[in-house]
């Protein structure tokens, strides 16, 4: 992984988020305050504007810079969470010269843990973590088994979608939807949806690679 790959992935994520405007926006309208899509878009566009600055950086520094940029751009609940994710990934990868797929899985896991810490949340609270935690777990496990990247990508897509779907029948105990009590049941979580969209975007890039 280098900053070229990161810029490439960021562009794919941005395209995917924009393509899912209607879904993401309506989910946060239903049980949130309706700004999650706009927040995600603002974040994606901020990263696009710094792609040239990211280019000369190491993967670790690029991820850290992305985190810092998101922190000062997104706001809301998702801003500090995604920022913590990337800054934590950057910190972990700093210690490795050329990251293996195992390194990346560990960095991803540490990013998810940073979100859990910052948001004081667990799985099962109807948040983005219901996608991120199972993905991190499966990723680490598959990477540990030396599975090929394409196989991992295919499986993670499924895990992400299942995680998203799992939020439907949960009561929300974190975030804005926690004020709704039982009324949140039956609705997917918006943050979980954007995570699913982003994970699919990245995995699709890996699957589309020639080799």
């Amino acid at each position, binding site marked *: 992984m280098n900053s070229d790959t990161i810029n490439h992935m960021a562009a794919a994520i941005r395209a995917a988020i924009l393509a899912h405007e209607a879904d993401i926006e309506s989910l946060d309208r239903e049980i949130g305050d309706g700004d999650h899509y706009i927040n995600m878009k603002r974040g994606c566009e901020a990263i696009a504007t710094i792609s040239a600055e990211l280019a000369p950086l190491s993967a670790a520094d690029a991820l850290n810079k992305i985190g810092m940029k998101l922190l000062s751009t997104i706001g809301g609940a998702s801003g500090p969470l995604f920022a913590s994710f990337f800054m934590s990934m950057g910190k972990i990868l700093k210690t490795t010269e050329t990251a293996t797929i195992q390194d990346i899985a560990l960095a991803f896991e540490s990013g998810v843990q940073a979100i859990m810490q910052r948001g004081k949340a667990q799985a099962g609270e109807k948040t983005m973590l219901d996608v991120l935690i199972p993905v991190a777990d499966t990723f680490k496990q598959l990477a540990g088994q030396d599975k090929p990247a394409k196989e991992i990508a295919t499986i993670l897509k499924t895990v992400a979608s299942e995680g998203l779907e799992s939020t439907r029948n949960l009561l929300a*105990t974190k975030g804005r939807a926690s004020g709704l009590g039982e009324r949140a049941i039956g609705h997917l979580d918006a943050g979980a949806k954007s995570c699913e969209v982003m994970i699919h975007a990245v995995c699709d890039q890996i699957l589309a690679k020639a080799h």
Partner: protein
Amino acid sequence: MKKFLNNVDHMLAESLTGFATAHANLVEVQFEPTFVKRKQKAQNKVAVISGGGSGHEPLHAGYVGKGMLDAACPGQVFTSPTPDQMLAAAEAVHADKGVLFIVKNYAGDVMNFEMAAEMLSFEHATIYTSDDCAVVNSTYTTGRRGVAGTVIVEKCVGSLAETGANLEACKVLGEKINLRTSSIGAALTSCTVPAAGRPTFDISDSDIEMGVGIHGEPGRRREAMREADAIVNDMVAAIVHDIEAKQLPLKGEILLLVNGLGATPLMELYLIYNTAAKLLKEKGFTVARSLVGNYITAIDMAGASISVCLLDDEIKQHWDSPVHTAGLRWGA
């Protein structure tokens, strides 16, 4: 969506510039990062800073000025501001007695202010407001939301800070007021977030949302529309129940705040006030202070919230002290 705006992306900046121009004697606005601060930097006092998503005007920028806030950090509409805003605001207004953040208890606000606080080099403390009694407090939730009670906390803590009181004393007063304040909101219509371009929720003419917050989130329950007295009766009952649950006295002097959520005419707010005051008197309270109007809004929502703050001499003194801001002014 029909709004006076040019471009959704510039709306906030244009509006804040207008605000700062209209109140140039009181405030200054700064961009990148965005914050509003007092024109005259205060000396030798705790710097009181608040902030949150925009769309709740006059909160918070409208409460910057003598006797209330030193600075406010407006985020995007309904989106909490980012830590760099709080850091820049703190840098600009701190005056050697530390920085006090007043934060409405929402995941986004809490986390962004928390990260700012972690990066802050000077002494600081944070008050979280959580007066909304529509959200049942339990160990499973992130806790109650901060709504109109925030105005009372900002007013009184601002007053105490003005006397030169220390950070700890300001925090203690703010937390006391937060504990002694219960609020609940009801909406007749949704609001429309400019960037979304359409109402956050659909609601028929025969329904209301009971227990709404200030972001167009659906309320606690959708209920049948009914006469104002019946709605107000339920709202007051929720407040009284909350005061009981907090084991606070069901008597004594109160401040009664009837707040419009943006599109509710004063005529209706005073009608609500009339019924609420009557019911609260019947319960045994004395309405000693009143505030009726749009003080913390949800853009263009038709709806209102009722807040009751149990007064004591200290709170009353700080409520009554002079305040000179765009949104609240007396004795000055």
